[in-house]
């Protein structure tokens, strides 16, 4: 089993990386680009066979350690 965790900056936090990437995309001629947000992606390999237990455990870890809820949001996917 594997967990995928996507961490993104909260909307209220200024994201200079996202802004710079967006402007670079425009310079390259890509049209229709809205806001860009640069975050982090974590892949966690799990021994557990119980997806619900794994979700509970990783949800706690995301909140406590893997993301900082003051500045970041996270999305947890288990497969």
């Amino acid at each position: 089993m594997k967990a995928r965790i996507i961490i993104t900056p909260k909307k209220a936090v200024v994201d200079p990386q996202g802004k710079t990437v967006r402007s670079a995309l425009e310079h390259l001629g890509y049209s229709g680009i809205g806001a860009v947000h640069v975050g982090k992606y974590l892949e966690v390999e799990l021994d557990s066979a119980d997806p619900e237990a794994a979700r509970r455990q990783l949800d706690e870890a995301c909140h406590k350690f893997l993301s900082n809820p003051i500045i970041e949001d996270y999305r947890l996917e288990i497969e």
Partner: protein
Amino acid sequence: MRSMEKRRGRGPAKASPAPPASIFDPRVNFAVLQFPGSNCDQDAVHVLRNVLGQSARLLWHKESSLGGTDAVIVPGGFSYGDYLRTGAIARFSPVMQAVQQFAANGGLVLGICNGFQILCEAGLLPGALVRNRSLQFRCEHIFLKTATTDSPFTNRTPADKLLRIPIAHGEGSYFADEATLAELQAKRQILWQYCSAQSELTEESNPNGSLLNIAGVCNERRNVAGLMPHPERASEPLLGSDDGRLVFESMIAALETKHLAPAA
């Protein structure tokens, strides 16, 4: 930034042991924490010991007790390589559990640069430090305004004096949500702000995009503070400024006058 003093090999630096504690010793007993990747720890010990004549010892991150300490310095550097987020891993080290307890008992704790980031991650200070607005690592002298002298970290700073102190960071942009910012202002927890040479809080004088030009804050109880600038790098005239001394001298004065009962 690299410390002026070279570290010999890995692991805890072999600093000379703290002088034996004595009830007759009037000096403040500082503990300077040391994480893998700390690099301003020796500078802090040097200033506290050799410039200010206090007792200071290094404390490795695996220690679970602070011993007989009057005040804790969480120094700058790149603890745990800044992996995941600055300060995110250091906050769970054994010594930080002891610092949590020390702070809960009213002990004085000052975080400098990475130390400020660690204290925010640990929840000992409000807010968070994010990537500089410019995306650049900024290493330069800035002007610092002391927003209130009513704290154990600012009580010796003349109200109208600007501090000339260097910064050296890539993630020093202070962020907190609007409710937290309002609370910080109402409770006068903003201690230091970036300003111009004319003491104005301008956009140009803000080196990293910090909200309200915040360079340092304290907790509600006023015994824990953090700032991004490096007072330990500006505590001797030889280095171009000794304004940073005022921060440490304020802590020493606060402990001497027993504004706060030392936490054992």
